[in-house]
């Protein structure tokens, strides 16, 4: 066998190994999701079975029907929880992204005193685990009278997300060449117009991805929400999952069904927005 054919063979073998590796990685990532979907459709006996039953013997939508059947018939106030989750997640995302854009733009474009210390300070807030703040927040919120309200949770989530959105959006604005805003100013724009006409559309995909991250963080957050909300009027979907736990039993099937209900909007949103996350939009702006 000559050198060329052995090199070709090696390249093919490596390709196959890569594919197997990728498949295993994807399987690890997707399996829990798949398991949740399957568990929501099968009887509790199968869920608890040892060894596990991979292929369900019978499929039923009983858990979903029960969920919407009202209290006393195995139902939970899922519509209210969904509404709470949506209001809290969307509002806090919009606020966090607005602040993130202003902050990110400032860090990317302006020189000011203490810039790196402020940036470092913002990032350091990420090192504090949210749960560590839940008790102080609880006392504070009780005193302020904003415990168990949409406003309280929105405030907490904005604070949680702002450092991260600033950091992400700063990076995206840095990728937009400074020359473009200057060219726009020469073309007759004010600084404000240059931002909205040129820099914002170009950083748009980045800002959208920051928004997705912020939204998903709020949508899935459990630890803070479970401390700061109590009633149906404020509880979010992840906290609602606890409705399936009783003193001695846990309704795994119902819990999994609610989890699926939670996953669907998040998945749909990500799918819609990811189409707009087209990379390389800035190519051709400057030399290349």
């Amino acid at each position: 066998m000559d050198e060329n054919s052995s090199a070709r063979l090696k390249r093919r073998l490596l390709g196959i190994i890569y594919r197997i590796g990728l498949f295993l990685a994807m399987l690890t990532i997707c399996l829990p999701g798949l398991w949740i979907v399957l568990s929501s459709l099968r009887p509790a006996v199968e869920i608890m079975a040892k060894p596990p039953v991979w292929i369900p013997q019978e499929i039923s939508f009983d858990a979903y029907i029960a969920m919407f059947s009202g209290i006393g018939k195995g139902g939970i106030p899922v519509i209210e929880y969904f509404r709470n989750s949506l209001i809290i997640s969307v509002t806090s995302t919009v606020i966090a992204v607005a602040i993130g854009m202003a902050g990110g733009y400032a860090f990317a474009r302006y020189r000011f005193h203490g810039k790196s210390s402020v940036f470092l300070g913002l990032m350091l807030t990420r090192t504090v685990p949210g749960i560590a703040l839940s008790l102080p927040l609880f006392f504070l919120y009780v005193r302020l009278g904003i415990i168990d309200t949409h406003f309280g949770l929105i405030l907490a989530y904005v604070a949680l997300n702002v450092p991260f959105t600033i950091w992400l959006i700063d990076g995206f604005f840095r990728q937009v060449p400074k020359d473009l805003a200057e060219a726009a100013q020469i073309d007759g724009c004010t600084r404000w117009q240059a931002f909205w006409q040129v820099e914002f559309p170009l950083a748009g995909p980045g800002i959208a991805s920051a928004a997705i991250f912020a939204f998903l963080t709020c949508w899935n957050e459990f630890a803070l929400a479970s401390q700061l909300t109590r009633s149906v009027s404020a509880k979010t979907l992840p906290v609602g999952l606890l409705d399936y736990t009783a003193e001695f039993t846990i309704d795994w099937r119902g819990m999994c069904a609610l989890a699926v209900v939670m996953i669907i909007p998040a998945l749909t949103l990500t799918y819609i927005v990811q189409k707009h996350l087209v990379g390389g939009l800035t190519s051709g702006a400057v030399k290349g």
Partner: protein
Amino acid sequence: MATITLTKLTKRYGNIGIVHGIDLDIADREFIALVGPSGCGKSTTLRMIAGLEEISAGSIDIGGRVVNDLPPRSRNISMVFQSYALYPHMTVRENLGFSLKIAGAAKEDMERRVAEASTILGLDALLDRRPSQLSGGQRQRVAMGRAIVRDPDVFLFDEPLSNLDAKLRTQMRTEIKKLHAKVQSTVIYVTHDQVEAMTLADRIVIMRDGHIEQVGTPDEVFRRPATRFVAGFIGSPPMNLHEATVDDGKLVFASGEKLPLPGQFKANVATGDRVVFGLRPDDIYPTGHGISSGAAAEVHQIELPITVTEPLGNETLVFVEFNRQDWVSRMLNPRPLRPGERVAMSLDMSQAHLFATETGKTLRS
């Protein structure tokens, strides 16, 4: 009318001075090139004129109006950037019409002016493409088109050809010259390439370390450089510059070798003066292979050893050793020469330059 007057124009970042109070008058419709090495302050000067940098002191006057604190959009200028700075999310048509859209121009007016500019620059076929689908030269043309559409008083060019390959650069240079003839605006053109400056400009401003070294026509800065720096910067290959001491009508070099003192400087130097002697490669050539501009009596003959030759086809650059250093000379109608060979060289002393060693200023009166 767009005359431009810079008065004591200064730029400082904290304690670091970038531009040190320069004065410059630019006539209406003049093509001015700012040249100098990296960091000489030429781009900063241009950006101050554009309004993209605040000025630290002094004033800028465009068309009789002081614009020191006006934003770029109020100065009626347009600028072509080194990076082109095309808006990647807009088509060529939208790029060209952007300034008109911002100004709120009528649709018909906008279409007409975009069409005019695209015809001048041959962009008609590209109007619906995006910048990423264009070649470097095409992008450069769109950037110029965007500047033309505004119909400004002043065009500012910031090293517009630096990102193009050598062939395209020559081609675009010609296009810029034609464009200036057509649009008849005042142009300020920043470049580090002295060939671009020489070929395009009515007058050249040579800058160094935030100061203006000389302002003059291409011919003036080439033939009568005011300083040693200008002499070395303008011309390719650069002028041969070597230190010497004046001694009784002769120039004595460090090695002890001597040359006659050029006649035009005799009245301005005295024995003991330390000077820098300069001679362009065109004015030193193997005897019979060059053109002397002055009287035959001013041509000094000397035999020198060859170190290296660089054949260029129609001419050869011959490096000869004098004063233990290489002097570059231009040989017209070349014949083959070998390194080590000694050849008779002609030095046209009527074209020589002398600069004071300490100040670097010319000793020409």
